[in-house]
């Protein structure tokens, strides 16, 4: 469904991605783990078109989207939940969700779509007239995910959904991600530092080191992998 081959992305002269190859199949949850600065977020930004790939192809449903504009890519059905949530803090919860429907703004299914989001995250429904900035970190993350779902994506790109969130809520959010995948049939590409959680959830996973994929396999395989345990799981295993 989404096939990334040999993608290289630069920030000025600094190369962040050094030829990334990976693919995501329809209906899967694919996780990408790696340490700070490995290029995880850059890869997501490159897929969603906010950063441009200098070389390589990103093929989505048979079309190369590597040089498309971000809003065109959202129209095609790839939506990103950016790192750090990036809620519109002075707009209400409801307005945030309406903005999510911007690409999908026929208005026809809006009432239905928003109800689905509220069913998924009931807390948002209680807070719909509240400003985004007044929500807790976990609620903001739910809002960010809900907002992205409003565009009716085929693929949801999640950038560190556990970042800065209370551990209890992290579990809840990972359960929701699984639900979105299974019940709404949305393909998930998840980038995480919380490697254990990400690998447990994933059908398949990749490890990104210095802008290159070094290890790939099923989530379970990677959980057992000695190198990964040593590099990414030891400290975080207690979570």
């Amino acid at each position, binding site marked *: 469904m989404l096939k990334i081959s040999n993608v290289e992305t630069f920030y000025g002269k600094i190369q962040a991605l050094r030829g990334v190859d990976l693919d995501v199949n329809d209906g899967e949850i694919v996780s990408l783990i790696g340490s700070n600065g490995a290029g995880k977020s850059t890869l997501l930004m490159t897929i969603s078109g906010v950063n441009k790939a200098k070389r390589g192809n990103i093929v989505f449903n048979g079309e190369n989207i590597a040089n498309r504009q*971000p809003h065109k890519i959202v129209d095609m059905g790839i939506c990103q939940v950016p790192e750090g949530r990036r809620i519109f803090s002075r*707009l209400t919860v409801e307005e945030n969700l309406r903005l999510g429907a911007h690409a999908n703004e026929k208005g026809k299914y809006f009432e239905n779509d928003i109800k689905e989001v509220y069913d998924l995250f009931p807390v948002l429904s209680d807070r719909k007239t509240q400003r985004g900035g007044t929500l807790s970190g976990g609620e903001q993350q739910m809002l960010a995910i809900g*907002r992205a779902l409003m565009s009716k994506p085929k693929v949801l790109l999640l950038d560190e959904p556990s970042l800065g969130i209370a551990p209890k809520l992290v579990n809840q959010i990972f359960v929701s991600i699984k639900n979105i995948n299974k019940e709404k049939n949305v393909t998930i590409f998840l980038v995480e530092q919380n490697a254990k959680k990400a690998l447990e959830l994933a059908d398949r996973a990749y490890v990104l080191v210095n802008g290159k994929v070094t290890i790939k396999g099923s989530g379970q395989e990677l959980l057992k992998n000695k190198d990964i345990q040593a590099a990414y799981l030891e400290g975080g295993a207690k979570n």
Partner: protein
Amino acid sequence: MEKKDIIQSFKDSLFTGLIALALFGPIVGLRTVSKGEGLFITPQWGVVFLLVGLCILGRFLININSARRTEFKIFSTLSSKFSSVTEDKAKHFAITGILFAVVFPFLPFTDRYFMDVAIMILTYIMLGWGLNIVVGLAGLLDLGYVAFYAVGAYSYALIATTFGWSFWICLPLAGVFAAFFGILLGFPVLRLRGDYLAIVTLGFGEIIRIILINWYEVTNGPDGITGIPRPSFFGLPFKRSPDEGETSFHLFFNLEYSTMHRIIFLYYLILVLALITNYFTLKIRKLPVGRAWEALREDEIACKSLGVNPTNTKLTAFAIGAMFGGFAGSFFATRQAFISPESFTFIESAIIVAIVVLGGMGSQTGVVLASIFLIGITEMFRDLEQYRMIAFGGAMVLIMVFKPKGILANRKPTILMHGDKK
């Protein structure tokens, strides 16, 4: 308060005095007087020492007060009065305000001078509302808004004097021209943000003014355009003695001729134009493009990731903001019957931005309050002649002291769900 604090405050105020001396010394102290052949310097140190003394004293008083952690009593009472102006009350204010504006021309104390000031305030309210789309909603700081005002005014003046078309045809055309210039400005500044955007828009405002001065063949340069047709009341001109075969306003309605008819008509014209601007802004805020403006102001990357096209969104903000500037410009031209580049200097942009910022970015009612406050105060002190800009500056400082986020800083959510009551 301890002795140490007093000494500290005193030292600090002496230092302030030193700065004041450095500033006032050359500016005030050395006065140039032209006598016969050439300029001569007349020192006036007395005034300098007076000013420096005032600075030291003022600073000392502020220091003592802040050390005590108390405010001047007058500060706190005034500020609490101001903060009771909430959005809820603002709604009542809006309704009474519109009603008042409608009956204003017929109130017993209203004379020609009041009407002129009211028309001026309404022009600034309209400009403020227009700019509010760009600055308040889309968050693009535009310091060259006067350019669109100028484009609107000149479009109207040139079309009306060349082709003799009526105001009602020229008005939309002027709006279209201004919107076109808005897009023209929009393109090069799409990638800029914050201060850099502000600098380029500032430059754009100056470019337009300088073109107006130098493109003599078209704009008549610094001499300006004279004899711009006045608007008619749906085809009825406001003339004492109408031309052959024409009926004028006072004859048609069987009234005694008065110049006030035209003034009152102009007043209602700008009132309607301003209210249209307001209505349009309130409506568009609830549409996808309006929401996208506000979202873009908050976070551009999040917008991109949600499929908002920032290019189009910014361009529409510039174009629509400029269009209303253009409407206001045509009104200005038809009211004055004479325009020249003099009327479109940077200070105009600065005043409009000040109205938007001091009103509370994005608040429609705030713009009204700030216009009345800033323009009204400046007018009240007209007798002070060249010193009245001090009143203008003073008014700005007062707002910033009491309401640092603007008169109405709170933005009302644009959506409330069915049955939800705030």
